[in-house]
């Protein structure tokens, strides 16, 4: 069914008002990536329309197009029957489109009132700030939001949840037509959530259209009238919340029933390559113990913020453990820096490849050899031919698509960038390879290639630790799965036999229902 036809169907199906906002066939390209491919989406007045999709599905990009932060390469934005094109966020705001950000955009060293009215401070006598009115108006808005803090409080002294309330208060200064909430409950406590729900209902009653982006099914089913799903930058359908189920939505989101290829996983394991014994970093994670054997892929599954990346950083020498031990090859090691870690044969493919993995302004070859310059230089001088050979080897082995080695890595697609980061580490011939969210924001094709590569590496003897918040990924590649919740290891599962609901229980702090299979903790081959 075409996108347009589907829209028409739902519009006729539900007898509510016509959309106040329509996004039609929006396309947005970045160099090497199509972030949005002819995506359509609409919001009716007084409706909560939930927008769902996995990480990297294009939700944030779509909202940035709507808010004027990105200019689309194709498609139309129609607001209240009028075609609009927003050159910048200010124009979008003027038209009544308000984005409540995930990340905060407040001025910390100003009062709550000043932040609420930033850019539109009430004036008197021409150009003096009318403080009385400023605080009176702010107090009124805060009252509507049932906020407990004063308009005179300094924003830097507020908790994250309260800061978010200030963001919302800001949206209420003008009468907005469309308010976009991007993961609004991520930083709220259970006590604060009902207040947010009240605010949203209040806005609904005033006829404001709400776009609600969230991963949490309970919230979406609680609040929304319709649910739209994006997948890999494409529109994947709209459902009426009343007529659907969580299962149906999940299927649309993932777009596949999980087909796990356990057979291709590595089978032969050697000695312990890595062992953690009661490893802790104060205030970050506590008493983490597990092991990774040669030739084995261990998955580390948990929600963002569970402490997974921090464990990896500690193994890699970037954080100092406050207690516990790290054993490499059976020997206790104290690593003081990433340099030590690399020397010991540890490689870390970081979570954020653009900020931590790559030098975007450098070319492909130079990024590839970055971690192992010693092997391509003699007495400090680079051996250009050797460097080129290294690059060619990994470029061919991993089928990295780039016009030439001179290409700046910033211009490559996410999948090819990630392959360069992996190639960079393979060139150092590590014994332990840690991959943190190895396929985040990468298209489906490259994802499968990277998964196959990870398995192949393990089969050739690498000990591999894969950190991921995507269940299909963890289940698809791991021999064993370590579940983390709130800085602790809550369970350890056999990667071939664990059920999805047990995994979810383990990473959300629920007691895990009995299961007999946990992985072995010693060096006995299990395969």
């Amino acid at each position: 069914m075409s996108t347009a036809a589907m829209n028409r169907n739902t519009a006729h199906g539900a007898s509510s008002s016509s959309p106040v906002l329509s996004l039609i066939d929006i396309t947005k390209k970045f160099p090497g990536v199509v972030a949005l491919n002819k995506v359509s989406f609409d919001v009716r007045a007084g409706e909560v329309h939930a927008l769902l999709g996995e990480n990297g599905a294009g939700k944030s990009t779509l909202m940035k197009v709507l808010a004027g932060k990105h200019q689309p390469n194709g498609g139309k934005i129609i607001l209240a029957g009028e075609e609009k094109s927003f050159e910048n966020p200010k124009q979008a705001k003027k038209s009544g489109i308000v984005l409540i950000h995930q990340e905060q955009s407040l001025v910390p060293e100003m009062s709550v009132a000043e932040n609420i009215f930033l850019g539109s401070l009430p004036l008197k006598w021409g150009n003096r700030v009318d403080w009385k009115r400023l605080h009176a108006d702010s107090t009124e808005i805060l009252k509507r939001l049932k906020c407990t803090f004063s308009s005179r409080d300094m924003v830097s002294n507020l908790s994250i949840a309260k800061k978010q309330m200030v963001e919302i208060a800001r949206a209420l200064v003008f009468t907005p037509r469309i308010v976009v909430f991007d993961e609004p409950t991520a930083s709220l406590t259970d006590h604060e959530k009902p207040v947010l729900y009240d605010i949203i209902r209040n806005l609904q009653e005033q006829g404001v259209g709400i776009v609600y982006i969230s991963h949490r099914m309970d919230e979406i089913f609680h609040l929304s009238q319709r649910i739209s799903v994006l997948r890999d930058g494409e529109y994947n359908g709209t459902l009426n919340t009343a007529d659907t189920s969580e299962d149906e939505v999940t299927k649309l989101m993932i777009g596949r029933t999980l087909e796990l290829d356990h057979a291709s996983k590595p089978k032969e394991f050697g000695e312990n390559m890595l062992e953690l014994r009661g490893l802790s970093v104060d205030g970050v994670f506590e008493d983490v113990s597990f092991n990774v054997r040669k030739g084995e892929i261990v998955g580390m599954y948990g929600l963002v913020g569970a402490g997974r990346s921090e464990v990896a950083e500690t193994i890699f020498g970037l954080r100092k453990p406050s207690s516990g031990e790290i054993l490499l090859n059976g020997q206790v090691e104290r690593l003081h820096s990433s340099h030590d870690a690399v020397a010991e044969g540890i490689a870390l493919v970081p979570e954020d490849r653009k900020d931590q993995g790559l030098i975007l302004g450098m070319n492909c070859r130079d990024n590839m050899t970055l971690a192992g310059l010693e092997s391509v230089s003699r007495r400090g001088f680079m051996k250009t031919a050797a460097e080129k050979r290294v690059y060619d080897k990994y470029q061919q082995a991993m089928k990295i698509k780039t016009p030439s080695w001179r290409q700046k890595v910033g211009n490559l697609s996410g999948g090819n960038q990630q392959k360069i980061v992996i190639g960079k580490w393979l060139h150092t011939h590590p014994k332990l390879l840690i991959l943190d969210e190895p396929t985040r924001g990468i298209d489906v094709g490259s994802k499968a290639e990277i998964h196959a590569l990870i398995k192949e590496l393990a089969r050739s003897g690498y000990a591999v630790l894969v950190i991921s918040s995507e269940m299909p990924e963890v289940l698809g590649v791991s021999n064993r799965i370590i579940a983390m919740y709130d800085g602790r290891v809550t369970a350890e599962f056999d990667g071939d036999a664990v059920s999805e609901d047990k995994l979810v229980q383990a990473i959300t702090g629920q007691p895990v229902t009995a299961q007999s299979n946990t992985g072995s903790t010693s060096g006995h081959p299990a395969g």
Partner: protein
Amino acid sequence: MINMKDFLKGSGFIQPIWVFVIVITIFFSFMSEYFLSIGNLSNILVQTSTIGLIALGMTYVMINGNIDLSVGAVLGLSASLSVGLQDYGITIAVIAALASGLVLGAINGLVVWKTGVNAFIVTLGAMIGVRGLIFVYTEEQSFYATNFAFSDFGTASIGPFPVLALIFLICTLVMHLVLKKTGHGRNTFAVGGNPEAALDAGIRIGRHMMINFIIVGFFAALAGVLLATQMGAATPNLGRDYELWTITAVVLGGTKLTGGYGSITGTLGGVLAIGILRNGMNLMQVPAFYVLVILGVILISVLIIDQRLNVHASKGVSI
């Protein structure tokens, strides 16, 4: 057909600053007959060698993502030491002068590395403090070289080539090769381009930063010694504003203040551009104050053009 924008952007082999150098060379050769004479050209090289030598080191520090504002003061101290210590022999005086640069550079680097305080602040403090040291050491006196071998060196030539110009060109070549061909050069780019990624690749970023501060300290001290040989004297105020001229030359040469980009060939172009403009306007008898105004305008114009070309090239890639 050659695309003018690509051409100017330097996506080929010609850097924009060299286009500028060629244009002003042609311009001044028409304005003054004397301009293109061997004598005048080697004169330009000698005049620019002081700023040029410091700029070589500054390029490394800036590609590395840092900056060094103390170079002018280090130059002044080194010049005073090289003249003031001549009672112990020229060799010892020169060695002491150069060592002062190495040590001060090492201190700058160490503080930036270990405390994480911004290099701008650290070297701003060093600039003030080291200038103070000069006054403590010289008691506000100018020193005059008593040894003629010392002051002869500054005006000596090998064949038609002035020694100072030769030293500058040889240093330029060496620094170019080190930046392009060594692991240290590569890592300097990496650390400036993305310190976090460099750290994650196991690169010892602190060590590379410190080496680069030592390098710029050495070149500032070397420039101080050579300037003293040229003048046969050292004054306590020697080297004031030199940090600004140096940074101007490096930035004109295409090195980015944010780090990760830059080249020695570009810096050579930037140094020559300033030298040629000053010399050429001098020959045209433009009053000195107007020369400063014109240089300021040119600096800003070149950077605006550079920025426009870059914005154009990366259009559509916001964030």
